[in-house]
């Protein structure tokens, strides 16, 4: 299998989908040159400026116009530049796009993809670093996926583009340069298919995106203490693959949920309830959670590091559960 980085895998997915379907186009700020993360680099050369559209700084119009296009037969892929800026198009995402099919009694479809570069790192500060996926998990009418590897990134983005509903793809900024194997042949990763990234016997770590890497690190550290941890990556949060979670809990009987976002009313809080609801009888210990404190992301490195969830916290949580 060829090796490529997460960003290249996304670029490949975009190119493949644009070749396959002439209705697919990309829009966003500075995407012709692929600024700032390089994901859309080179696409304009192949597909032209009609299909790789540099938009004005007008988030509401970028997202709103994409909805208009999606309702009338096109398949837009919107680059949100930084997920934090989705707030500038929040009405379009949560009131217009998410509700269109439902409120109109199923008459319309809104097949668009929102690419959401997000996440903490490199002192980007409070307006560029947040994990905002919980907002959209809490918005009925949207699908939400969140890849952790290059192969998943390509497979999920392709599925998102082909999906008849609006799909948000959360791309962690710290993963863009992470390399991994990507199948030579075209592969789609279905929404609602969790992936067991490492098998284990004693504890299940449920983690997404950057936290999957931290969880895998944690499994190595735990292995040295004789604790065998399993890492389950849901890959899509809506729809959620409950069966894979249940099967894992039935094997390990202990759960740590690790996420990068703030702790309160978060994705992790919801996943903990899902596990409790479907696997209560399997649990040998209360569910443990690793998350950020409930503060915006600070700029200065020591404070930023302090609020960044990491492998050590997963290790500590798992160790505690094994007592």
């Amino acid at each position: 299998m060829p090796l490529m980085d997460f960003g290249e895998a996304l670029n490949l997915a975009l190119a493949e989908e644009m070749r396959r379907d002439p209705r697919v186009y990309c829009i966003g700020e500075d995407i012709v040159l692929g600024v700032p993360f390089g994901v859309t680099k080179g696409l304009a050369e192949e597909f032209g400026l009609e299909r790789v559209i540099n938009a004005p700084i007008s988030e509401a119009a970028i997202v709103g116009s994409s909805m208009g296009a999606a309702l009338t037969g096109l398949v837009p892929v919107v680059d949100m530049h930084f997920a934090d800026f989705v707030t500038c198009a929040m009405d379009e995402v949560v009131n217009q796009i998410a509700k269109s099919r439902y409120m109109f009694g199923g008459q319309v479809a809104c097949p668009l993809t929102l690419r959401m570069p997000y996440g903490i790192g490199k002192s980007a500060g409070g307006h560029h670093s947040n994990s905002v996926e919980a907002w959209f998990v809490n918005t009925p009418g949207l699908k939400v996926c969140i890849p952790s590897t290059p192969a998943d990134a390509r497979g999920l983005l392709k599925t998102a583009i082909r999906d008849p509903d609006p799909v948000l793809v959360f791309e962690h900024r710290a993963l863009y340069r992470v390399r991994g194997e990507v199948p030579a042949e075209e592969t789609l990763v279905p929404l609602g298919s969790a992936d067991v990234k490492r098998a284990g016997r004693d504890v299940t770590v449920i983690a997404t995106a950057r936290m999957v890497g931290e969880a895998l690190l944690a499994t190595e550290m735990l292995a040295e203490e004789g604790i065998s941890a399993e890492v389950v990556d849901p890959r899509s949060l809506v729809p959620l693959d409950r069966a894979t979670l249940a099967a894992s809990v039935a094997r390990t009987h202990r759960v740590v949920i690790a996420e990068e976002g703030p702790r309160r009313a978060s994705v992790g809080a919801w996943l903990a309830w899902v596990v409790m609801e479907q696997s209560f009888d399997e649990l040998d210990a209360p569910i443990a959670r690793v998350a950020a404190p409930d503060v915006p992301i600070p700029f200065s490195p020591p404070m930023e590091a302090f609020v960044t969830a990491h492998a050590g916290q997963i290790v500590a949580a798992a160790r505690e559960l094994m007592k």
Partner: protein
Amino acid sequence: MTEAAGPDLLLQMYAAMLRVRRFEERARELYHAGRIPGFIHLSVGQEAVAVGACAALRHDDYLLSTHRGHGHLIAKGGSLRRLMAELYGKAAGCCKGKGGSMHIADTSVGYLGANGVLTSGCVLAPGVGLSIRMRGTDQVVAVLFGDGAANRGPFHEGVNLSALWRAPVVFLCENNAWASTTAQDLSTAGGSIAARAAGYGIPGVAVDGNDAVAVYAAVARAVARARAGEGPSLIEAKTVRWLGHHEGDPQAYRPRSEVEDGRRRDPIARLRAHLEASALLDATHAARVAEGIEAEVEDAVAFAESSPLPEPEAALDDLLVHYPWSDR
């Protein structure tokens, strides 16, 4: 306040532009030396806008700023020490290291915040204006934003509301013709930002943003109008960004000649030539000014270098007022 800048003001503006320039050139070196985390957007070449505008503002007037805001803060009279310390992420920075370059505020000089979210300042401005009126002072608020930012909705909402309320606001577009990698003619319909004022029934003027004196005159007129209770104005100051969008952007998308043209229109050299021609400045005086500024900047660097980083746990402070029974 008159619209014609007198000799003292001209000399002050000259020194202020030099202070902004030297501070940012030093910040640039320090950034590339790995002393400043995150990313920084410099305004080298655009100094006349910040300085011309702030020369027309009083100390107690407000300023709302942008991601490219170091110069705005310095021109408003902000402490170089606290600014540099903030760029370093130090506890002594004006935001205790929580903000960084793009999210700086210094209320001690009325600087109500840079903004990492473009254009948001435009909707804060009418509210600041309303507060000024309700408190019965004669302050004004100036809000800076780029040409790219003028394409977001909050620009229109902020101008409309301010006009409706006749709020004491000066909308000042710092037009460097680029929004990151996107040229103005590919993103801004109608060509002129100033002309948009007509739709809201307020004055709209375009000025040479490389001419501090012209910026000063235009802003002074708008400020006088705002203080007199006649409402907002929109000023478009056309200038040139010499460097990349942010430090580390080689700006390969941009014709070299454009930057060279810009350098030929250096606002600092221009004011200096004017001062020399009017016999307000000679070589000795200029050298003294430059030396003084060099010392101020080095003092700020030394302060930032020598002050401690914040305690990691400080990340939990300053969020909300906590009651004993509330959880974090």
